[in-house]
């Protein structure tokens, strides 16, 4: 059905396109939604991925998945516009004939487009619209089907691209067709069943059918014996046709579960289609919220008049939020919208960059305590923003800061940058704060990339075994704090190594010795947190499934960090390592942390399967190679004289 609807649009679009001979076939600007409508839909609660979240979040991650960006640039005759995710989502829902011309399908290689028998744009990596891809849709689905039959490890880049594009095309078709359930009208005169049920109507909508037809069918069954054979046959044929049509509409209307059930014990929200189905089930008909279908229909009727639409949208929003509030599922919805609109992490990323540039410039300036203190303060705003973002996430979900891989990046970054900020107070050499700012920037950049690559909600429902806030709060956060500290130590070690390697000796007396001591101190911090975190993990495992230690890869990864840090410590105490040796070892510690953090997940075995990452090997190997070079450089640097 969804495809048929769109094909109609596409046919219209193609005539249009051929006339214009260009793909940016939007003759005018995209629909301009009043601010209040955008707000209403942004804060509309939906059950998606196992939790109730604002439609804004659903829209964000859908657009991110399709477009690879958090907003959409739309070109039209006479200008360009930038759409927020929710505006784009509304266009897809309510103006699919416009949205099908948006270039929102990000395609990594034009080979995909060529494989569909279509003409690619000039660039290898580009964005395409539905109207561009539609003529090759059948081919796309065939190719993607073939590709998805291959086992995961045998799929190549092209296969993955085809599967991704096919999924995105289906996602868009689903969106475009979702409101059909509210738009659909059934002509009464065409159908004996409807003519019987609605004798004085010309056309009816889904809500009318849900309200009247089930009763009528019961009456009809009771009086069926009065009909003669030919009447019965004609009725049966029309009934079959009618239910076929109803099925198709219902299929499209299953995308969004945005109707909270009145029964507070029922966790399952309803889609418009499930309301329709409930109306036909004797045990559910009494509670089926058919009025919600009416509200949806009332909303689409006045379009394209957006002001009239706004009034009806407000009524629908009020009905949904009223029910959700009564179930206690609305309280954190506006907060989540605020969280995303605040763009805390985005701002934090750029402020970290700013802080880093400031500190980097300051290296050229003479040593001044006041200047250093002032510069260090520039680390405070991005840190605060990051902390606010993390705190809001905790409040929204009612969970400790780290429950999935994405959040490990945020928290590690916070710890590393916060250490830079605090260590600067102890050792005012402008090294700690620079590295704090650098790690903050890199971490936030990485988090943003990771989120975009996954294109999935980063606050998903947690799996059963993680359903314990106590252990998540203790074990996971301490381990991650250890990662952050170790990586910060490794970053400082780079300064040490390159400083000595390049023979930078115009530094204050005892500079390297002090830096070495700071690196050692940070390593101790890393050891304490990783060790405590690891044993806490063991205690959790013993509580949950009866063994303290199971040689699980993730546990082993943490153990590797602990063992290396312990070896460093003993070597220092035993006099085998001095500052230089500690610095070089700290770089190795960083490599081990990255193995424990990402490498073991990429191995694909073990219990910590909430965090498997695929295709990460290339990045990891490049990182380890670079760090190995730094380690070797460090060993070389140790032979150079140093001012103490």
């Amino acid at each position, binding site marked *: 059905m969804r495809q048929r609807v769109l094909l109609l649009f596409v046919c219209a679009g193609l005539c249009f396109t051929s006339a214009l001979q260009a793909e940016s076939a939007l003759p005018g600007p995209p629909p301009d939604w009043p601010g209040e409508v955008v707000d209403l839909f942004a804060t509309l609660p939906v059950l*998606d991925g196992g939790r109730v979240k604002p439609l804004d979040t659903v829209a964000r991650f859908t657009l991110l998945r399709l477009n690879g960006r958090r907003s959409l640039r739309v070109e039209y005759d006479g200008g360009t516009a930038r759409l927020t995710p929710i505006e784009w989502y509304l266009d897809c829902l309510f103006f699919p004939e416009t949205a099908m011309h948006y270039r929102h399908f990000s395609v990594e290689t034009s080979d995909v487009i060529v494989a569909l028998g279509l003409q690619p744009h000039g660039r290898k990596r580009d964005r395409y619209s539905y109207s561009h891809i539609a003529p090759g849709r059948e081919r796309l689905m065939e190719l993607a089907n073939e590709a998805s039959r291959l086992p995961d490890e045998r799929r190549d880049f092209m296969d993955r691209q085809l599967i991704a594009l096919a999924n995105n095309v289906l996602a868009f078709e689903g969106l475009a067709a979702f409101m059909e359930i509210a738009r659909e009208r059934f002509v009464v005169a065409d159908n004996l069943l409807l003519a019987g049920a609605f004798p004085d109507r010309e056309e009816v909508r889904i809500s009318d059918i849900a309200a009247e037809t089930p009763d009528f069918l019961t009456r009809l069954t009771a009086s069926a014996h009065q009909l003669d054979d030919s009447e019965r046959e004609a009725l049966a044929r029309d009934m079959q046709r009618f239910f076929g049509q109803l099925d198709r509409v219902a299929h499209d209307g299953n995308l969004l579960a945005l109707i909270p059930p009145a029964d507070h014990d029922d966790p399952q929200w309803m889609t418009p289609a499930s309301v329709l189905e409930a109306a036909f089930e004797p045990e559910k008909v009494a509670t089926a919220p058919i009025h919600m279908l009416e509200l949806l229909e009332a909303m689409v009727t006045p379009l394209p008049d957006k002001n009239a639409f706004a009034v009806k949208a407000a009524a629908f929003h009020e009905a949904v939020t009223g029910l959700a509030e009564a179930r206690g599922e609305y309280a954190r919805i506006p907060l989540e919208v605020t969280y995303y609109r605040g763009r805390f992490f985005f701002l934090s990323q750029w402020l970290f960059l700013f802080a880093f540039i400031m500190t980097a410039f300051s290296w050229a300036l003479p040593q001044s305590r006041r200047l250093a203190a002032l510069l260090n303060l520039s680390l405070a705003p991005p840190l605060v923003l990051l902390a606010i973002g993390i705190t809001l996430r905790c409040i929204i979900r009612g969970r400790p800061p780290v429950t999935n891989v994405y959040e490990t990046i945020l928290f590690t970054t916070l710890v590393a940058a916060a250490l830079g900020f605090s260590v600067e107070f102890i050792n005012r050499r402008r090294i700690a704060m620079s590295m704090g700012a650098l790690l903050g920037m890199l971490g936030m950049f990485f988090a943003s990339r990771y989120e975009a690559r996954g294109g999935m909600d980063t606050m998903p429902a947690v799996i059963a075994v993680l359903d314990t806030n106590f252990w998540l709060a203790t074990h996971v956060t301490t381990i991650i704090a250890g990662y952050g500290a170790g990586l910060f130590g490794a970053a400082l070690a780079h300064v040490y190594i390159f400083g000595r390697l390049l023979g930078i000796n115009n530094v204050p007396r005892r500079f390297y010795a002090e830096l070495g001591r700071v690196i050692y101190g940070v390593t101790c911090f890393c050891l304490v947190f990783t060790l405590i975190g690891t044993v806490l993990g063991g205690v959790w495992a013993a509580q949950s499934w009866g063994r303290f230690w199971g040689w699980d890869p993730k546990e082993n990864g943490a153990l590797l960090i602990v063992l290396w840090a312990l070896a460093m410590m003993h070597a220092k105490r035993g006099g085998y390592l001095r500052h230089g040796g500690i610095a070089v070892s700290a770089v190795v510690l960083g490599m081990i942390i990255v193995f424990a953090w990402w490498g073991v997940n990429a191995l694909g075995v073990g219990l910590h399967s909430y965090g498997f990452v695929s295709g990460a090997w290339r990045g990891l190997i490049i990182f380890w190679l670079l760090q190995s070079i730094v380690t070797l450089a460090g060993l070389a640097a140790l032979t150079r004289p140093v001012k103490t």
Partner: protein
Amino acid sequence: MKILQRIFAFLSSYGLSIVLLLLMMVLVFFGTLEQTRLGLFETQRRYFESLVVVHPVFGWFPLPLPGGYLLLALVFVNMLFGAIVRAPKRWRRPGLLIAHGGVLYLIVAGFVAYTYAINGNLPLYEGDSGSRFQSYYEWEIRIYEMAPDSEGRVFIIPQDEFEDVGDTGRVFYHQALPLELRVARYYPNCRPAPSRDAWSVDGVTLSPLPKDSTAEQNVPGVFVSLHQPGQEAAPSEPGILWGMERGPWRMLAEGREYAFALRRREWELPFTLTLEQFNHETHPGTTMPSHFSSEIVLQEGDAKRDVLIRMNEPLRHRGYTFYQASWGPTDAQPGDPLYSVLAVTRNPAGQWPMYASFIISFGLLLHFGQALLRYLRQQSGVPSDAHKR
């Protein structure tokens, strides 16, 4: 005397600690990578519960390494001598003393668990009761005296007595049994297959399979034969025992019937558990599980009580601990009976690691707290003991 002193100095040295720590690192690293190839159980046995392991570097270069068992024993000695007996300034740095004491305790806990702990599972369908739990990996041959005119005794041959029998086999007997059992050719993982070779019985033999990387999946089998006591050379009755056989192998001897079976090792519980109901919930609109729990009735003598076992909330009773491990069938339709699998452990050192963890954490925080204070004092110009060294 001098030699003893030198040995003591070596065993308590920093150098030895560092070498041991690095060897442990290497072992853990390879042991982690090997899991992708060998599976957890086999890796654990070969790398971490062994005295020596030969690791194939890049799949071919054999690198001998001390195994986890040996390394931990050496670490124990090194730590005991170095950090406790000979620790310099131990009273001025009590944190280190405490932390090392905690690690020693942890190693002891590991040793006790490795030596004495029992692990198994108890699968129960709703409505069923169980007072025995079975091993994941260990098997045993059971010989049952059959009703009606018997005492219903069961004779058991544990796996470690027959897993190394080879082709010649080994004879097992018991004074209360009117027959002797020869056991030969044990396969840790195999399946029955049609054959006419010398070992086949009624046209069937056991065909060996490579060990599964998930050790619980292995199904062993063994060839057996029965003869009169003391008459090994006489013609005997051959048979095959296989782990997944539907029913036992039955034989008559002196007018009494005996049944033979190869089964997972079992342990008796001093009480009975009945699964009243198994509950599982998913996050709404998904297939992602959010909760599992088993409603259990625990019966001990005449006393009964209700218990709820769920993720992260096990039942601890009389030294046994029952955890919610898994459930099935996963393709069950609403209304189908479900089963719940409880993981069972009896570990005399069950809570020791937790106590050890607290001790270690306390020791480390104390030590590094002291160190930080010293450093800060030094930074702000106040003389500290660090300068006096």
